Every structure is written in structure tokens, then in C-alpha cells.
């Protein structure tokens, strides 16, 4: 079994810290993985908003590259990329005709055999079993686990955790010594792809997410998605301006929390 990683664009740019923490974790737990060679952008929201075929072809190229390089399992830390890859795999499995068409577009064989893991699945499968041996400091904080949309929805396609009040991240955080709070905003949307085009909507939605976490006395919001992180963290000035508030609760990637 060879493990691949698909970092996705954000992790090489705006979410560099996330990328670093994933690799640091992998190193600390002696987990090796290969970057999918010459990977491309998954197309994100833009592609499926404007062009359905493109939105399937871009992820299909990534998956085909993984297959070509014998990567049976791919870790996808970005929740948005994770969702695009899994959805593509699902759509092409459902419709063999479409699969042929996309194979033709990407000029590559596509079988759809790779197993795609999101970051929590990866942690659960490879980190947690050896956590006790490696853990240095317990992460003794009250945390709000924020899953966002794309880790759990569409639930019937991703088939990961439960759609309402998911638990996997809470369980991981509990094992790290943290106390997850009962948090109704776990899967509410942060504004996602409107990060730049509609900062007002992002501020409004992300603000509600932050407000509830602060209100319930959380010390930090834990995320597993660079887009959520950037909306909740980088957009904090806009949020505070929009809601006339001064929220300062930190937003931490789940991998950073383990690294601490």
C-alpha cells in the first residue's frame, strides 16, 4: 500500500500553516506519503458553478494520476478538495458513459479505485493508534469542533460520519485531552467560496459561527478545512466590523492541535 497526498492549492498558499502541520504530524508519527506527481487544482466551487464537465475532469485527472502512480489511498487535508474528489468518484461510478467521456477528456485511464481519506479519517486511522505513545502535552482546552459543510455533506455520497452533529473530530479532540462543547454550528456554512467575492456574506455567516463558539465559552475553534480557516480567521477584521464586535477566539487546524 502506497499512500498519496493531495495537498491542493490552498495548502501551498494561503493555508501554508495547515500544510506544514500535516507534514510535521506525518513526520512525527513516521508516516510516509507521496505527493501526487504534477497534481492540478480540483476546480473548487468555481468549476462546478460554471462548467459541470470541467468540474469532473479536473478531479478525475488527479485521481487518474494517483492510480497511475499506484497510490491506493490518498489523504486530502482540504475539505473542499476532499469533497470534489469524492463527488467526482461517485458521479463517474454511477454513470459509466460519463466516465468514458471524462477519460477521453483527460486523455488518461480512470478506474476510480483509489480510497480517498479526509484529514480526520487519516488521523483516526494512523495517528490515534499511536497517540498515547507520542503525546507530549495534553491539549486541555474547551474547543468548538467546526466541521463545515464539505466534510459531511452530501452525506449519502461521502458516507462519512453523521450529517447532523458529527462526532469524529470531537472524538479525536477528546483523545487529545480537549473538551469539545455541544456546538450547533458544527456544520453550518461559513460562506465558503464567497471569501473574496462576497465578504459581506462571509462576515455574516462566519460571525454567527464565531459568536456561538465564544458564547459557549470555547477556548478555540478547531477546523479541518483551509477555506473555513481563512473565512473564520483571516476575515476576522471584516467579521468584527460587520457585527461591531471584537471576537478574538483562535481558529486552529486539527493537525496543529495535535502538534501542540
Amino acid at each position: 500500500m502506497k499512500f498519496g497526498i493531495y495537498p491542493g492549492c490552498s495548502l501551498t498558499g494561503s493555508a501554508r500553516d495547515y500544510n506544514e502541520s500535516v507534514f510535521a504530524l506525518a513526520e512525527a508519527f513516521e508516516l510516509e506519503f507521496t505527493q501526487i506527481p504534477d497534481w492540478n487544482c480540483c476546480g473548487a466551487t468555481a468549476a462546478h458553478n460554471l462548467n459541470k464537465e470541467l468540474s469532473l475532469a479536473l478531479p478525475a485527472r488527479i485521481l487518474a494520476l494517483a492510480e497511475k502512480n499506484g497510490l491506493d489511498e490518498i489523504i486530502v487535508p482540504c475539505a473542499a478538495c476532499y469533497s470534489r474528489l469524492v463527488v467526482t468518484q461517485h458521479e463517474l461510478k454511477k454513470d459509466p458513459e460519463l466516465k468514458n467521456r471524462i477519460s477521453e477528456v483527460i486523455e488518461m485511464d480512470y478506474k476510480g479505485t483509489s480510497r480517498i481519506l479526509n484529514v480526520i479519517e487519516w488521523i483516526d486511522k494512523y495517528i490515534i493508534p499511536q497517540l498515547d505513545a507520542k503525546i507530549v502535552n495534553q491539549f486541555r482546552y474547551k474547543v468548538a469542533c467546526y466541521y463545515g459543510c464539505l466534510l459531511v455533506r452530501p452525506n449519502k455520497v461521502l458516507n462519512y460520519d453523521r450529517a447532523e452533529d458529527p462526532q469524529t473530530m470531537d472524538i479525536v479532540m477528546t483523545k487529545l485531552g480537549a473538551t469539545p462543547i455541544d456546538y450547533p454550528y458544527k456544520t453550518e456554512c461559513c460562506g465558503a467560496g464567497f471569501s473574496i467575492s462576497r465578504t459581506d456574506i462571509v462576515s455574516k455567516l462566519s460571525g454567527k459561527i464565531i459568536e456561538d463558539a465564544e458564547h459557549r465559552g470555547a477556548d478555540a475553534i478547531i477546523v479541518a478545512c483551509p477555506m473555513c480557516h481563512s473565512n473564520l480567521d483571516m476575515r476576522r477584521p471584516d467579521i468584527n466590523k460587520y457585527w461591531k464586535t471584537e471576537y478574538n477566539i483562535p481558529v486552529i487546524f486539527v493537525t496543529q492541535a495535535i502538534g501542540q
Partner: protein
Amino acid sequence: MSHSEHHTERNSLAGSIESKVDVKAQKCYQCGKCSAGCPVADDMDLPPSVVMRLLQTEQPDNDDRILRSHSIWLCVTCEMCLSRCPMEIDIPSMMDYLRQRSRSEKKVNKKARNIIAFHKSFLNSIRFTGRLYELGLILDYKRQSLNLTQDISLAPKMISRGKLHLFPTMIKGTAHIARIFKKTSN
């Protein structure tokens, strides 16, 4: 012979949605749970359940209203509606289709200009480099949307934190990516 076979080809928007994305507007019984859970419903001119109702009428005027609406661009594809819909209607897929129809029929709502400008810039960025070039994206978006001053304060901080590359990363298969774009642009 099933009952549906008795129907002739429908020209309505609902008809094409049914054949293209396998979403049946008639399944909606207007409970409104989608609109109740939609994070952007209160910003929408037509909340999702209203879009469904308009589709059900199969009237050209109403189809037009949908394609010209701001709503279809405000949908963030958070999938909450599908997740809670008692009839399991795939509204997000339908929204993707509506956006494409709206563009191809040149009925895009003016207020959605920024959103589309961003999506276009995004795709432009990867069309040439294969990956997202965030600085390029922002600059291109500013050009397209004419939002010249937005986020100016963010950039230097990000560049200094290594979060915003000054130059794009080009993948090896840029020609490959360009062909994919070409083949999928119908």
C-alpha cells in the same frame, strides 16, 4: 407502459432539469425545510423552495425569473438543503445546472457580477498554470470586478507570512490542463 411515458417532451426548465440532472421538481411539496436551513436564504430574492415552486408551474415567465435571479448565484453549495430534504431533492446539482443555463442564455443577474468574476478569475488562474495562483487570482478578480481597493490591507501581511506567492507555480502538464479546458468548453 408507465404513466410518465404518456407525457410528451417538456420544454420547460423543470423538464430539462429532470432530463439533464435527474432532479424532479414535481417531487417538492413545498415544506420549505430547504429555505429554513439555507444559510443565505434571507439574502436571496428567491429562496430555494420558491425556486422549486416556480419550476413546478412550468411557465416561461417563471422559468425566466429563476434564470435571472440573484439566488442561483448566492447558493454556496453547502448542501444543507439536500441533507435535510424529506424528498431527497438534489437542489445543489440543480443550482449548478441553473447557473450554467443562466450564463448560456445570457440572463445572469447583475448583482451576481462579482461572484461570476471571481469564479472566472479562479478558472483563468488554473487554466494557465494548472494550480491556483492566489495573487494572480486576486489581481485578475480586481480587474474583472473593478473592486480595486478591496483587501489591499491583507496582501502584504499574507506575503510576509509566506501565504501569498508572488509568482505562480506552473505544473508540468499545463498543456494537458489547457486541453481539458478546451474539450470541456462547449
